[in-house]
């Protein structure tokens, strides 16, 4: 686990570190090698283009004039206007969807981070009878897929009046993230030296003070990575709002977009604009916090 985290750490930022390159790069370049190198860059650029093409297509179609969408919907950047965005935002209801996405994602992400940090500390640092059993119950969530219990959960939520409510969906989103979160945060707390808490205890700190004042500040980077990862996961989550917010009053961007698409109105312009609104926060977070994102997703691979 710790190793996984370390790998994520190196992943994007320190790949340039010296000594991590294969031997070829260390030699002085011969003309032949230079040709090979530019050939390689050409290949990489082609692959990048394939990788990014669908994203460009969303941008291009969203930013066309409506007339252009009708005649040439998928030609790249053949015109420029905000008509589609304005349309999606007002008539398409995407301003509401965006708001609902924020209302669902922000609290569930905060809850995942807070609950996981508290539990991670306990499972790493505070031994008591029954703790191991509790830990197994939590980690069981890493093995059992959401499919296993999604259908009964629907009727359970309906039974307790949480179906089609924001608190219900927020709590379900939270519960889908805490198993991984606890596992992830526990690894960070396990790595901290025991001398720290012993010294604090000698100085007369209470257990609560040790947790809050000594330990918490030391796992900030871990909690940050967890927050970024969980935010993206919850923002992108499709099945939870699809199942547990069926009424449509609290639709987030993902199911809102799906609904809009199902309308079959061939309204490609606003649909593209809606897609753009949906992906933009993820793209921004991804670019600004790539290290945390990669770290989260690599460790997230343990999730079954």
């Amino acid at each position, binding site marked *: *686990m710790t*190793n*996984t985290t370390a*790998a994520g750490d190196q*992943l*994007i930022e320190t790949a340039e570190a010296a000594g991590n*390159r*294969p*031997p070829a790069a260390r030699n002085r370049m011969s003309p032949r090698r230079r040709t090979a190198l530019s050939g390689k*860059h050409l*290949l*990489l650029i082609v692959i*990048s283009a394939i*990788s990014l093409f*669908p994203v460009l297509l969303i941008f291009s179609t969203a930013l066309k004039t409506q007339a252009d969408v009708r005649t040439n*919907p998928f030609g790249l950047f053949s015109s420029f206007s905000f008509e589609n965005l304005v349309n999606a935002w007002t008539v398409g209801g995407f301003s509401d969807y965006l708001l609902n996405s924020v209302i669902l994602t922000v609290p569930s992400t905060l809850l995942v981070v807070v*609950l996981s940090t*508290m539990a991670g*500390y*306990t499972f790493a*640092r*505070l*031994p*008591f009878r029954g*703790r191991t059993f509790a830990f197994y119950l*939590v980690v*069981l*969530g*890493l*093995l*059992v897929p959401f*499919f*296993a*219990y*999604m*259908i*009964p*959960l629907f*009727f*359970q939520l309906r039974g307790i009046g949480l179906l089609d409510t924001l608190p219900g969906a927020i*709590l379900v989103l939270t*519960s889908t993230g805490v198993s991984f979160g606890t596992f992830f945060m526990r690894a960070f707390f396990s790595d901290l030296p025991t001398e720290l808490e012993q010294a604090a*205890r000698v100085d007369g700190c209470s*257990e609560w003070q040790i*947790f809050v004042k000594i330990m918490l500040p030391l796992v900030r980077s871990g909690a940050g990575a967890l927050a970024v990862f969980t935010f993206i996961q919850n*923002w*992108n989550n*499709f099945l939870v709002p699809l199942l547990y917010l069926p009424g449509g009053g609290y639709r987030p961007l*993902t199911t809102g*977009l*799906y609904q809009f698409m199902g309308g079959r109105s061939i309204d490609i312009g606003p649909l593209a604009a809606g897609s753009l609104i*949906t992906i933009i926060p*993820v*793209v921004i977070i*991804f670019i600004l916090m*790539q290290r945390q*994102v*990669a770290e989260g997703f*690599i460790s997230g691979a343990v999730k*079954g």
Partner: protein
Amino acid sequence: MGAALQSTTPRVTRRAQTRLGIALIAPLMLLVAVFFLFPLGNAIYYSFVDFDGLNPTPPFVGLDNYTRMFADAEMWHALGNNVIWIVLGTAIPLVIGLVQALLLWNVRHAGIYYRLAFFLPYVLPQVAIGIVWGWIYNPVNGWVNKTLEALGLGGLATGWLGNPDTAFYAVMATAIWSITGFVLIIFLSALRNVDLEQMDASRLDGVNAGQQLRYIILPQIMPVFLMVTTVTLVGGFQVFDIIFIMTGGGPANATNVMGTYAYTSAFQLSQISYGTTLALLITALSIPCAVALNRLQRRLSLQGTGA
């Protein structure tokens, strides 16, 4: 109370730790119990009764749901699709991801931009991915058909998602496009552990690139290879979003997998118990893979092989 514990930690401290520990995990345990353990237990109960979503005391039917499931041709068809998805959806990203990682391995300057470009598709919401690929596959003016026409292969053009023969593979190609960046990133971090001295030495001995790959690189990244395989395997059993969004399991069930079949059975046909039984089969199939993955992961961390 263990004697060893007693000798290192004073009783007062231990009691304080227990109190704080229980307080700190209580909210989590409550959440896990209500939103995970309880519905999980209920799922098993549902599979032994005939629940239609309304009747508060559904009749007990024993193994009926299970016998029906194993005699259901559509279940086997959906499961077969899962297997195809797992085989191709594992093999293709592994090969492409490895090639990309090897290409990127000694790129210094622009490396970061390539990595960002390759990884981005993996973090995008599946709905947006499904929509934009739907356009790319558009029968009239989609890029796939336009490219085929430009290459003089216009005869191959088709409505990729509407044609039962191509729909499944078209959706899979989209999924492969999305996951390959993830595979690449894992391979890149594994390549960092490859012994460079050995690479240098082998080069001096006149070993060619193919042999280097086979005898030096692959053995050293083998554990990560296995890990990525397990991840895609688990994902292959549980695939839902992208298929549901792009085709809904159609046309004519051509793209149905266990996940979409369980969903439609339960929520569109109101066969709650049957849908739950199908979902439990996905669970039963993917848990062994997930367990193997966790084992593997633990062994890797112990060996310090990374990733």
